[in-house]
């Protein structure tokens, strides 16, 4: 069973959101997602300053067997990206909720709450997917 920290929020497309103290959020992909994709070989990061919208592609994570879109879970502007992923894409596998973070976003003022779930709901969703 993959790791699902309780303090984070989750999108049904397997991204996590962490609220930081300065009002921005950090975004990455979940342990379940990195397990499915396999060893990361490349991450295509968004540009700092780019606008992102909930539910739209903002990045790509690439393994040997798949290249998967990362969907932004929130509306806002990218204020930072994890440059370390350029040389060490494997951080996404090793530490998906920590050093494997992908982008930091300042939420838009009129941001929609979005369809984010808590850890328990996400865990239930993953379990039902795995049972298929």
């Amino acid at each position, binding site marked *: 069973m993959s790791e699902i920290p309780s303090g984070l929020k989750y999108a049904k497309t397997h991204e996590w959101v962490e609220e930081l103290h300065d009002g921005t959020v950090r975004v990455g992909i979940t342990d379940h997602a990195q397990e499915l994709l396999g*060893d990361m*070989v490349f991450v295509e990061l968004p540009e700092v300053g780019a606008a992102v919208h909930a539910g739209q592609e903002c990045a790509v994570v690439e393994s*040997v067997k798949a290249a998967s879109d990362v969907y932004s879970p929130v509306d806002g502007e990218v204020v930072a990206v994890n440059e370390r992923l350029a040389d060490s894409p494997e951080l996404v596998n090793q530490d998906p909720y920590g050093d494997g973070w992908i982008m930091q976003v300042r939420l838009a003022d009129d941001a929609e709450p979005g369809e984010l779930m808590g850890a328990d709901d996400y865990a239930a969703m993953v379990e039902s997917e795995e049972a298929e």
Partner: protein
Amino acid sequence: MRDERPMMNESPLIFEQSRPGRRNPAHAPEAPARPVDMPAELLREAPPALPEVSEMQVVRHYTRLSQRNFAIDTQFYPLGSCTMKYNPRACNTLAMLPGFLGRHPLAPVATGQGLLACLFELQEILKTVTGMQGVSLAPMAGAQGEFAGIAMIRAYHDARGDTARREILVPDAAHGTNPATAVMCGYTAREIPTDAQGDVDLEALRAAVGPQTAGLMLTNPSTLGVFERRIIEIAGIVHEAGGLLYYDGANLNAILGKVRPGDMGFDVIHLNLHKTFSTPHGGGGPGAGPVGVGERLLPYLPLPIVAREGETYRWLEESDRPHSIGRLSAFGGNMGVLLRAYVYARLLGREGMERVAEYATLNANYLMARLREAGFEPAFPERRATHEFIITLRRQARELGVNAMDFAKRLLDHGMHAPTTYFPLLVPECFLIEPTETEDKATLDAFAAAMAAIQHEAETRPETVKTAPHTLPVRRLDDVRAARELDLVWEGDEGKP
């Protein structure tokens, strides 16, 4: 193939065998009498750093490299959807006759009547076999054929002023070229689910079609190795909504001579001559992907096309076909491949073609029965195999920790190429197995026996399977490293151009 002597498996690069100053004077002209009279700033400063090796070294090196390959000529190669049948040598010899091989593509048509006769007759044969009204031999591979097909659908709708049609429907089991092609033609690809029996979900299809539907891309038999039984209904649903039907001919070997795409309601098709018509795969091409169309799309066929006028042949051009989607190559396409396909078609003739699907299907069903006896799990046990079928190794993956990739690698040790693995994506841990009609019963039995042996190993000493192959020039390769630490060009001698 593996040799225990340590040096025998080493394979230095041709560059590593270079010695400065080594030349092959038999091949290059003498240094020209005059110095090159061109402005200095346009000239290269030093010749490119290509290998400096003798002819003996070149021959030995590339011959030895060839011996590190699996090929149809040496191994059973049951790659699903690739149709690895025997490549008759006559096709090669006759396509390479000097009159064809030495001919310039822009030479006058008057001296090309022999070539054009072959191409025209091939067009006609493909029309008959597919039940279509017109054929163009121009596309150079299946993917280009697909592009041509979808571009023609677009041309048709645009010509009618029906520009609201922005979607191409694609089954979720489709080959990746299908959605990629739709996007290249400015469409979005929308997926239609497949049901548990392997057929397209008709309810989902009905819900998905509408005024935005340009067309549906389908393979029949599908990529799941089963016949799309309700194809007539599918055609009806799409046509009623105003869309057109595209046939991906990758699996034509299953129905050649038995069923024609035109009769199933398809408006446009492509064929893969390097599959169904046995032109050689060449380690990754060249292929040919001719397209065939029904009446509605005739004006849009890509150029060039061969026409016969009385007793002479000529190329049709833009002035003959002003609505053509255009050209896909600088010259006529992969002529040599087309000639090989033509020779194959003449060797087979009508009776031979009728037998292709029969024996391909017999072989696939037999192999499926033998594997089932050995305890393997077909993905669609209650369906007939077509020319191919799927088994799933998910039980082995779950219970023994041995997956489809492991089985594939261990098959290599048995001197057989593995079937297609992990495609279609819908079936977990799958093998898509296509024996083709040119394999005999003994070969099929040997494959079933090899699979049974690997199963036994997976149960008793799984590590052997998980670290396979053991008898090839290299052991299992690190794909992740290949993608992370990209080494695409040799820099060992710091070769400067």
